[in-house]
């Protein structure tokens, strides 16, 4: 039943989940100081020439896989949370981020789908462009990896203001050590995660995430293998058994 007059609707009343999530991420329920270790790095704005150089040095590959170790330093925790796992990246397929210890959980981004498998083996599928249902931050990581591993610095420059520090001691000798500082341009994201630092030489080595309340996460990459994916690797992008898409997680379909 169409309305008489085009008083379009009360969308102003409705909220978007994306918005609330962003608020959640950026909310600080207490005050805390930020890490100042990298203040020097963030003063070095990256020139496009430097970025181009970095892109060549990274010698982008269409795929990569390897292991990661993650250290979460939360102020409220007695000791850091340490986890290990592996990742698979392919330009044509997407990203698999699989934690193996202390418990298994997997995150797969492919075809604009965000698939999450928890420790119980429950599979949850979200449409990535339906940002309201996915977690914006969970989306961010695969995108970051995608851009980094494929050496797509330009894509990074779209969403972050970049600063770069090249290791002067190793000048002239490849592989040169570098540190890339990333500050999100999106104000909401910036509130949630004001700084990220990526470091490496030919390949990326570490990613450090800082949050405004002083929490910090460090991810170390190792055993990076850029050879083509095996059939088994590709199979992992489609976790079996394929779950029924529940009404709650399925993209909302407009009534026709």
């Amino acid at each position: 039943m169409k309305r008489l007059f085009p008083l379009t609707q009360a969308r102003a009343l409705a909220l978007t989940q994306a918005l609330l999530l962003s608020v959640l991420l950026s909310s600080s329920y207490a005050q805390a100081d930020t890490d100042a270790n990298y203040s020097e790095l963030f003063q070095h704005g990256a020139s496009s020439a430097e970025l181009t150089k970095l892109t060549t040095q990274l010698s982008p590959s269409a795929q990569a896989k390897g292991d990661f170790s993650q250290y979460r330093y939360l102020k409220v925790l007695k000791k850091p949370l340490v986890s290990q796992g592996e990742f698979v990246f392919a330009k044509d397929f997407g990203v698999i981020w699989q934690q193996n210890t202390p418990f298994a959980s997997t995150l797969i981004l492919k075809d604009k789908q965000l698939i999450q498998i928890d420790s119980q083996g429950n599979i949850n599928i979200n449409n990535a462009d339906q940002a309201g249902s996915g977690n914006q931050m969970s989306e961010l990581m695969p995108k970051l990896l995608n851009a980094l591993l494929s050496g797509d610095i330009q894509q990074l420059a779209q969403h972050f203001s970049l600063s770069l520090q090249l290791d002067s001691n190793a000048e002239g000798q490849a592989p040169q050590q570098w540190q890339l500082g990333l500050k999100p341009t999106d104000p909401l994201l910036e509130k949630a995660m004001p700084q990220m630092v990526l470091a490496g030489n030919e390949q990326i080595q570490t990613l450090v995430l800082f949050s405004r309340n002083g929490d910090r996460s460090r991810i170390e990459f190792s055993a990076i293998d850029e050879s083509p994916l095996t059939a088994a690797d590709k199979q992992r992008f489609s976790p079996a058994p394929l779950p029924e898409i529940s009404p709650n997680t399925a993209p909302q379909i407009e009534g026709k």
Partner: protein
Amino acid sequence: MKPSLNRFLSHNTAKLRLFIWLTLIAITLATGLVLWQGGARVQSDILAMLPKVSESPMTQRAMAQVEQQLANRIYLGFISGNEQSAIDAAKTAMAKLKLPSQHNTKKSTQNTARKSAFIDISSADMAQAEALNRYYFNHRFQLLTNEQQQLLERGQWQQLTQAALEKLYNAFSYANSDLLTHDPLLLYPDNLIALAPSQQLSVKQGVLLKTIAPKALNQSPRFAAIVMAKGRDSAFNPNAQQLQLSALTTAFDAVKQQDSDIEIIKAGALFHAMAATENAKREVSSIGLISLLGVIALVWFAFRSFMPLTIALVTVSSSFLFAVVTTTAVFGELHLLTLVFGTSLIGISIDYCFHYYCERLNHPSHSSDRVIQQIFIAISLALLTSVIAYSAIGLAPFPGMQQVAIFCASGLVGAYLTLLLAYPTLAARPLRDGNRALDYASSYQGFMLSLMPAGSSKRLLLAVGTCVFITIGFTQLAANDDIRQLQHTPADIQAEEDELRTLLSGGTDNQFLLVTGDSEQQVTDELAQLEPLLKQAEQDNLIGNHLSLSRFLPSQSAQERHYQLQGLIYREHLDEILASLGLDPSIKGALIEQYQAAKGNFITADSLLNHAAGESFKPLWLSPQEGESGYGAIVLLGGITQLEALTQRFDALPHVELVDKVGDISTVMGHYRQITLGLLALALLIAGIIFTFRFGIRLAAVVVAVPALSALLTLACLGISHNPLTLFHALALILVFGIGIDYSLFFAESKQQTRGVMMAVFMSAMSTLLAFGLLAFSQTPAINAFGLTLMLGIGFTFLLSPFIQIFTRKSIDVD
């Protein structure tokens, strides 16, 4: 005729009468100027034309609140293949719209600070989202999602702990130290997210963004950035409309300059109102102008003199002056639709002028005063019947229609007074010989009368044929009282609106649910119980979406239960939970303190709606006002597919009412359509009785039969051409009666001297058809219906009225 009246109409008083007339005109003019200075204006709000529906005070308040919430909002979409371009366009547009308008009146620029044409300009409302977070975080111990509640009811706190741990390990999750010290199991984020329905909208850089999936596989997706705003003043106020339009033009120009490829779509009442205003203005000017030109040509053709033309213009102008000033004085404003309908006044007021001049043409030797005395009875009866007809229109509960009635009635009185008071002096100059036109008229009437079959069997056949035609027409006649037909929306505006509606996941319909109760507690309970029914209705595709306060305002019993269930965490297992998560045990004391302090800290309508978080929900809540005791909540519905099925579903619930203003108004329209047709019959009867005193019962019956038969034939034609009957057809039929009865009256009054009358009726019918025939070409369905009915009705009356002479002849024979 009374001698005193005759004396008044005699030549001696001509100067005095002109003086009275001039004084009247001067007074009216002055009144008009005062009214206009006092802020009277042309109103183009179509809502102002709608009838008032009687509802309970609570329902009326609910309607008013919903209307106010939805009114004057506009929605803009900036579409681009590049996400950043869409976002930048939205940002530029918002910045421009926030600037004070440049087209304010000079007065206000000097005295007051200049204001922007729009308020509440926003895309993603960050401030509200943050306020919601603040408010609900404070009430986190009163909140649980269904899943959380079930787990706690089964005592499965370990499962919640495990889920929290997993979030803790995710470096990209919202688990952080701050949140953990207040909510170790991370229960709150899910509750906050549950407040917002899942939508296909994202937020980037503070801008609401929608990805439009490509239509074909090989195309890349496009991005739409959404901007919303509310007009500072009504979209139907012409000045505000202009201000808002120029503000939008400025904003769009800036956006286009930045990126010429950007596509802009818009939706909102403003754009419909603008189209309606444009349309009405165009129609008033074109129909009014063509009507006027046609009439001028007609007069020139008939009288070959500029004098009648000048007098006709004087008559029409003074009639319009009276009409405009009286209407403004009564209503304080003039509706644009009144003016459109009112153009018909030209056609009617000029009839008096025609009648006067045709009579003079017929009796060239008679003085102006003599002619007026001759036609005085006919003109007065004509005025009387027309005013009766217009009063009937005025009985309709449409403010707009009441305006039309007052407008036309007062305009006719103005024309009548002009004829009586000013003509003796102004129109005293004799006419040139006009026999040729009179001869045409006479031979036309002779031709018409010769068409009447002579034999009684043939006459019977004609009567039967007419009856059959009318019967067939009536069987085909349907009615349609849907008020949506009042609105004519250009296709391109509708298309843009539909596109935006799709982007925003449907819209909100005019129908809504009103939930009432004796206490706040009862209403929130009712809302909670209603929620599963609404979800079911969504699944059954009866509605597309709904917006209820139930999510934001849980019932107090549910809140209390949630609080008690969380006791499992904070009273019994906090040590184990903190240990399993590896959290610092020192936070335990503060956590327990927070939990205990939160007891009875309920989310209430008062606290929510007076908090920044709930400000925009205010229109959905009704607290008792003076003299009332009940509470109410509004549930907005969108994408309704089957209204009847939906109504049935909620009929059984005693505290839930489906408020359907559109349906109610349509019902009222139908009701008044029937009443109007009844009034028409009554008006015919009254006119018949009045005429009986003058003409005797037989001729009176014939005089009334002409408009009656015309009305029947018109209805039959509408039926056969499949035009569903509306109130506007019925109202037009009343006018057909008002004008048509003049024709038969003039014929009946003139007995055998019908040459002048025939010519007057011809000219009057021509001028009326010119005015109304053009209304039938209006794009607004209501005006179109009005015009079409009048065209048919006047046409039939014009064709039938000459036959009255047959009966006047007979009645003379009988005498």
